[in-house]
């Protein structure tokens, strides 16, 4: 829940799929950056990403609205094509 919505009985959420409205990218400290030349599009990072924040392709694309910067993609990438960089502070 966010904003000034009225609370519901027992905090039940009646609108399905509303999690997409909650962008968790702001939690990130480290940011995964893809080296397009190294990426072979094997999809392992897509499989491992706990937030479904990776779009398959060659190279893969990361959805920074939801990526929390956990770094699992970087660890799992067999080509070492994903580098974790310090997120720029605003």
């Amino acid at each position, binding site marked *: *829940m*966010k904003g000034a919505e009225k609370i519901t009985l*027992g*905090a*039940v959420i009646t609108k*399905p799929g509303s999690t997409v409205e909650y962008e968790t990218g702001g939690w990130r400290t480290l940011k995964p950056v893809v080296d397009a030349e190294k990426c072979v599009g094997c999809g392992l990072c897509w499989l491992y990403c706990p937030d479904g924040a990776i779009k398959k392709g060659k190279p893969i694309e990361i959805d920074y609205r939801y990526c929390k910067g956990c770094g699992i993609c970087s660890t799992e990438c067999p080509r070492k094509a994903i580098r974790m960089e310090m997120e720029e502070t605003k």
Partner: protein
Amino acid sequence: MKLVLTGNEAAAFGAKLARAQVISAYPITPQTVSVEKLAEFVANGELDAEFVEVESEHSALSVCVGAAAAGARAFTATSSQGLALMSEILYIAAGLRLPIVMANVNRSLSAPISIWCDQQDSISVRDCGWIQLYCENNQEILDSIIQAYKIGESVHLPVMVCYDGYILSHTAEVVDVPDQSSVDEFLPPYQPPYKLDPENPVTMGPVGVPEYYQEFRYALHEAVREAKEKVIEVDRDFERRFGRGYGLIENYRCDDAEVVVITMGSLSGTVKEVIDKRRERGDKVGMIKVRCYRPFPHREILGSLESAEGIAVMEKDISLGATGALYADVTTAIQNSDRRPLVMDFICGLGGRDVKLDHVEETIETIKKCVARRKIETPVKWLGLRKEVL
């Protein structure tokens, strides 16, 4: 139909008459017979319910949470360590506003291990958002379980029906078991406001961020407070149909009483004996039985204390390092009044220690002496404490 039933059997009959649809429990003394009886009803085809066997009380209540979330009428029963193990889920059931009904057979907590009665178990979870009703006898157990569903489903809160281990759970009394059709008329099927349904998905149990959590707690608190009216309304409706009513409290000969004993559960019956004897000799004494402990009936208790100069709280629990829990609540109730009767706390009956008529006499004599001297020296007294073994 009149049957001779133990308290545990009365609880099982109550859940059966309420047509509980999902029952999940883990056996623990002295609760065991209540769920054994329910398992028998299900196995015999007398009750159409899912009986879910589990490996712990934590799971038993979790099953009930899932069942109630899916829109079913759920029942569980436990005691002591079992209730303590359910603790985490108790708060969740209340926060999710699921009207589960539980029978808690009051038993003391370890250590040392004790299977005998006191009310420390349910008193220790008084803040979890469940309505708590304490029963005096086996008839009240059966009636309260049926009422509990109607109360809980109207205000979207879980209800704990508490009764004293052994003293009630294993003692047989004549119990009037109402017929199914009258109970069905009193208690129609549960209509949940939301339920887990793949056709109409909802999310239950999301995160409550700091901007919202406090409001959820306030809403829950208000719901428990306001449930008082529903407890009264449901009880009156029940009394009209079945001829038995219990109220939030029972005011027993308190009008004009100078000394009032306040207690809960089966001890009320013992205290009434003493009150009657003393009344025969013209002694102005009375008793308040607190049946609904949460929400706490502050106003109603105060209303029965209009002539009281001394109040003796007798309770089978202790908030270690402070006072008994009921004493703390009673003094809060009095705090809001102009009158300031003297209040003393009598801790008794812990771990199955018998509370006898003599203990009640001693209690009344003690508070009377304080009233005469207008002074209380020790606000908390332990009745029948065997100092020689300390």
